[in-house]
């Protein structure tokens, strides 16, 4: 067990100008499950591979516990990794795959077998120990890859999108299995995914990356409730947050028919660089329908209603054509998504009036994208 520390760690791939990972500062607590999440190309896998020792660190340091491992070979770091495509040794049986690290370490045969069998029992693989990876299903291979990691009893687990090759149903099952296994073993884990749902459900803390730069680290609740910038606001949550560029006037944020009051603190935080604009966001689930003319409400023309049983989502655009150009959501530009009562959803073509619930709006500087105080 150990902590993991990234200390201004950067990686610049040869022949590129921009760092793939730019001065990453991050502390992972002992026994913590930390999820690195971000869109493709954000540097999350590179960060993980730097910790694994599979990528060079061009500047800064990486520590496991108190030990500086920046220039230590992967084989001497005492960490185990689960690869996206599992990277099982095709010529070895499941048992040999799982016991390979112990065999290399020169452990006695009896101990290897005992530890492999223990891990196999945990992962429900006991009856497959003599098979080759080729003869296993995708889910079983994934478990073998997990088994290979836990047999080692390493200081840190690294997982690089281990669920992305599974079908949707199995992914949800395995997600909870991995999370509970990690809680039970108590091994510090760094987990990479591009799926924010995975991040929210599995992580003790989440770290959002974009273009190699750390955006925000926090608990899933922090990320959802108080995203620190526009990117995190749009990335975390499903469906994604509605984000609009509003004009500030008369102490209100105005866009088309919408006039949303702002607090004194917020107004004071707006600078000249914002050019009288503010980015206002609200989650689809943080709204309710009101009658026309209610204060701080605005109208939406319904384009599509998505009924999921437990929820219904209205996809629509603002009544004012020009205003609708300035708002976007997970469904694309000029689209607003709103969650409505599933028992009685509006029809396509209807006009509905919505109000953002109190304290549920997110305000960001339009110049810097940073969160503004309320």
């Amino acid at each position, binding site marked *: 067990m150990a902590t993991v520390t990234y200390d201004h760690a950067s990686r610049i791939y040869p022949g590129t100008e921009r760092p793939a990972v730019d001065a990453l500062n991050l502390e992972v607590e002992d026994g913590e499950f930390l999820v690195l999440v971000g869109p493709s190309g954000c540097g999350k896998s590179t960060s993980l591979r730097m910790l*694994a*020792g*599979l990528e060079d660190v061009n500047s800064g340091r990486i520590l496991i516990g108190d030990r500086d491992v920046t220039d230590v*070979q*992967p*084989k*001497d*770091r005492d*960490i*185990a*990794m689960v*690869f996206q*495509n599992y*990277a*099982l*040794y*095709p*010529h*070895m049986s499941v048992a040999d795959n799982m016991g*390979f*690290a112990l065999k*290399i*370490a020169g452990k006695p045969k009896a101990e290897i077998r005992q530890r492999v069998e223990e891990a196999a029992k945990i992962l429900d693989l006991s009856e497959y120990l003599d098979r080759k990876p080729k003869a296993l299903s995708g889910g079983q291979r994934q478990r073998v890859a997990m088994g*290979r990691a836990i047999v*080692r009893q390493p200081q840190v687990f690294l997982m690089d999108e281990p669920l992305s090759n599974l079908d949707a149903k199995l992914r949800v099952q395995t997600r909870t299995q991995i999370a509970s296994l990690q809680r039970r073993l108590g091994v510090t884990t760094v987990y990479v995914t591009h799926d924010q749902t995975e991040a929210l459900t599995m992580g003790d803390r989440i770290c959002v990356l974009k273009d190699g730069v750390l955006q925000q680290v926090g608990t899933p609740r922090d990320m959802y409730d108080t995203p620190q910038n526009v990117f995190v606001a749009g990335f975390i949550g499903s469906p994604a947050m509605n984000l609009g560029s509003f004009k500030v006037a008369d102490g209100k944020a105005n866009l088309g028919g919408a006039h949303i009051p702002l607090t004194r603190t917020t107004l004071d935080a707006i600078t000249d660089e914002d050019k009288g604009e503010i980015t206002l966001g609200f989650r689809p689930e943080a709204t309710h329908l009101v009658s026309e003319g209610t204060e701080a409400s605005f109208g939406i023309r319904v384009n599509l209603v998505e009924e999921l049983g437990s929820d219904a989502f209205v996809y629509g655009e603002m009544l004012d054509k020009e205003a609708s150009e300035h708002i976007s959501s997970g469904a694309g530009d000029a689209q607003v998504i709103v969650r409505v009562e599933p028992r009685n959803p509006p029809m396509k073509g209807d006009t509905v009036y919505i109000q953002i619930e109190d304290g549920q709006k997110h305000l960001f500087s339009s110049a810097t994208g940073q969160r503004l105080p309320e």
Partner: protein
Amino acid sequence: MTAAAAPAESPPRKVGGARPARIVIGVIGAVVVAWAAANVFLALAYYPEWFFDNRLLMAVIGMIAGVGGAALLFYFVNVFIEGLPQRFSEGVIPYVFVFPSFFLLGLVLVYPTVQTINYSFASNDSTAYVGFDNYVAIFGSGEFWLSLTNNALWLIVVPAVTVVVGLVVALFADRLSAQGEKVAKSFIFLPMAISFVAASTIWAIQIYSPNPDIGLLNSIVTSLGGDAQNWIRVDTLRLNSFLMMVILIWMQAGFAMILLSGGIKGVPEETLEAARMDGANEVQVFFRVIVPQIKGTMITVFITVTILVLKVFDIIYVLTNGQASTNVIANLFFQELFTFQRAGRASAIVVVLLILVTPILIYQVRHYRKEAAR
């Protein structure tokens, strides 16, 4: 019954019945085409003046008659088969189409093999049977046993060394830059393009020449203070045989390298990374992860070179013609047949060679089937 049981004479014929007209056309067409093509070829051979003694014209006509004749022949055969009742024709089609190739294979491979076995029991001019006399003679001759042991030596050394050299070169070429790899591989592959006779001559003169001003080996030896030797005549510990093996290895290393390099590139990079994280050093990664995964390619190269070695002739023929204890089976057979005019003994030697090769061929076919099944 209903309309389905229409009278047999009505225009829409019953599906699957015989069609005598097609059978007749097919048979007549096939015979005419075969007769015409045969006549064209005979004319090309016996009456070149019909073609104005123009070789180019004759070649073009020959090609048209050959390719076109084959196509037409298959067409008429097909017409014939389609004229047969359907349940017949479906079973017959594959055999009819593979028959010509089987016939040609039989003509150029099976027939000579049978004849050789036949002649091995016959006199030197193949006019009378002499029982096992030829076999008694060759097994009683020192030269034959010398050739057998030489062949065994070649078999033990050349395939193994070729695979190892190819593997080493492939590994190092893999580490070069893309451009460097291309250049290096081209140079190593170059000897493959040279004929055995040319390569043997180059080595005989440039490397092994007794004159230290010409031969590289002697120039090295003399510059180190040694005496120039006629290396190719030094049969102490069969040194000259080993020197000739170097030529074959030099020629085949490129072939081995190309195949093995492809194999190495096919090994998933992740399995190497996984092994490194499992604590394996580079030597362990190579022997426990790379080699097992390219075993199939290594066996393929090994078998191919083995068969080549069994047939090795040109190198010995050019350098020593089997003198100075360097004789091998293929060269011995050549001498018996063409120098001593003893067809019986020559055939017996070839039969022994055939018996030695057969197990390797069987293994090779099995290996390829197993590869194909994967």
